[in-house]
């Protein structure tokens, strides 16, 4: 019978009690994503602009897209043609997509003018762009699922671009079964995963400071000299 021995401590994680994969993962997450970073109660003083609402607007739009999409898919593709509630749900799905893209594109351009990739935030930019591109493909498959004249014509016209790049058999725009699978499963999973990663990265790295911000700026100097401000609080 062997006696239990504590494993030798890993120098990397000494003092943390973490020597398993799970423990090391927990330590990594707590280091990079501490709870006060994930769910912050304050933000740098410069995070005060109308420009910051568009990212949250896109997230809100996405939530309405998913909710209305779940209702539509649970009732099947024919429901919205014959039910007034179904038609309204279809309208909610359409208009949340339109708003989602409007917010997303404005958000993207504002982040460009902010050069928001600075200071180690490049993956946040890349995941944002990937979220946009995957959303474009997802929306396209939604237009193919309308099961009406518009979707028939889009299928006829769009097949050429997909066939020209050699993917027309696996992404067959006239095959409702395939497109249904792409639209309600694979692509939403991809959009959800990329958007979740994007939001976590925003929290992990924090909001990028203004271009040309300098140590001599009042907002920074006050923090080091202990100056007070009635409108903004000290960290």
């Amino acid at each position, binding site marked *: 019978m062997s006696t239990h021995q504590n494993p030798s401590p890993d120098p990397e994680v000494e003092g943390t009690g973490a020597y398993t994969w799970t423990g090391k993962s927990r330590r990594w997450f707590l280091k990079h994503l501490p709870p006060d970073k994930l769910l912050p109660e304050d933000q740098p*003083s410069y995070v005060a602009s109308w420009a910051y609402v568009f990212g949250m607007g896109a997230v809100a739009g996405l939530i309405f897209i998913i909710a209305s999409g779940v209702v539509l898919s649970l009732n099947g593709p024919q429901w919205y043609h014959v039910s007034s509630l179904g038609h309204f749900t279809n309208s*909610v799905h359409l208009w949340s997509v339109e708003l989602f893209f409007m917010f997303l594109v404005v958000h993207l351009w504002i982040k460009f003018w902010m050069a928001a990739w600075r200071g180690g935030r490049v993956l946040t930019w890349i995941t944002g762009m990937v979220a946009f591109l995957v959303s474009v493909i997802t929306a396209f498959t939604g237009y193919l699922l309308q099961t009406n004249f518009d979707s028939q*014509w889009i299928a*006829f016209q769009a097949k050429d671009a997909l066939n020209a790049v050699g993917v027309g*058999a696996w992404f067959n725009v006239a095959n409702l079964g395939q497109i249904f699978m792409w639209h309600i499963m694979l692509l939403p999973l991809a959009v959800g995963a990329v958007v979740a990663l994007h939001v976590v990265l925003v929290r992990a790295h924090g909001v990028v400071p203004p271009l040309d911000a300098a140590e001599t700026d009042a*907002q920074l100097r006050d923090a080091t000299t202990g100056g007070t401000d009635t409108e903004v609080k000290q960290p």
Partner: protein
Amino acid sequence: MTRIPSPMSWRKGDNIAGRPWRGRVRDYDLFKELTIGLVVVGLLVIGLSAIFSSPDDPGVTLKSWATAAPSDFVATATAELGGTSDTAGYGPPYNATPDATQKLGFIDLQALSGVRLPIDTANDFVINPLKTLPSPPPALAVWAAATADQQAKWAADYTTALAAAPNGDPAHVAGGNYGPVPALTLALLAMAGNGNLDGVLQNGGQPYNLDYTPTILFLGDGGYFPNLATTAHLTGDQWGVMNETGNTPGQSWLWLFSFFYQIQPFKSSPNADILVVSVMLLLSLALTVLPFIPGLRSIPRKIPVHRLIWKDYYGQR
């Protein structure tokens, strides 16, 4: 010597952008902001849905086509029989028509994908559906007994005769030897007119089928379906890729994709689709990796839109 990264660099350097913020902070409530966002966007969505609704123009069936434009239907069925329709000459993934693929230089992805969704227009669109009728037309046996050259000649002669007839009306075609083609196409017209062809063409004899490829391709080979799309401003040369039926906004985010189809050299190129898709992939990739591209990543500094975005910050310097 340590190289100091440019202030526009994506690298994490020892500067304000790379360090945790140590200046003043303001109160921020993430969940409150999300809730406000949901309420505002929710009201907008419900308001827009209630006011503008969403379009739902009924789809086209082979029955509605045969009823509304019988001459066009017969002319298209003749082209399918003779192998001269767009689908018959499309190439992969539907058939192996030589030199039909779109190429990007020497790269031919369309040919590489192979004939994955095989379609023989004469048999799949005309002959096989007619065989499912309770009393198949005797003309089927005449067609089957003829050589391929004879079949092609009958179909070509009938196509010419239809084009010369007033309004392309099969009832006023000049006399000639068209073999079984008029009987076959008129039988198919009757089959479509009473609604049988839609089911047969789409389900291929199976009880379950969600694949509308044959129906969509057959419709597209005619003139009726594309004419409806032109009237609804949906065709490619009308920026149709980003349009929706009626006045509802469609996929406006595809504006750049649609734009390239309107200009040369794409507009008149036989390889337009592969060229436009390639350009869009390149541009999308460039925007994705823009932080790594010197020059482009410095544009935000040269055109100071950020002064507007962070107006309060700069005002308090």
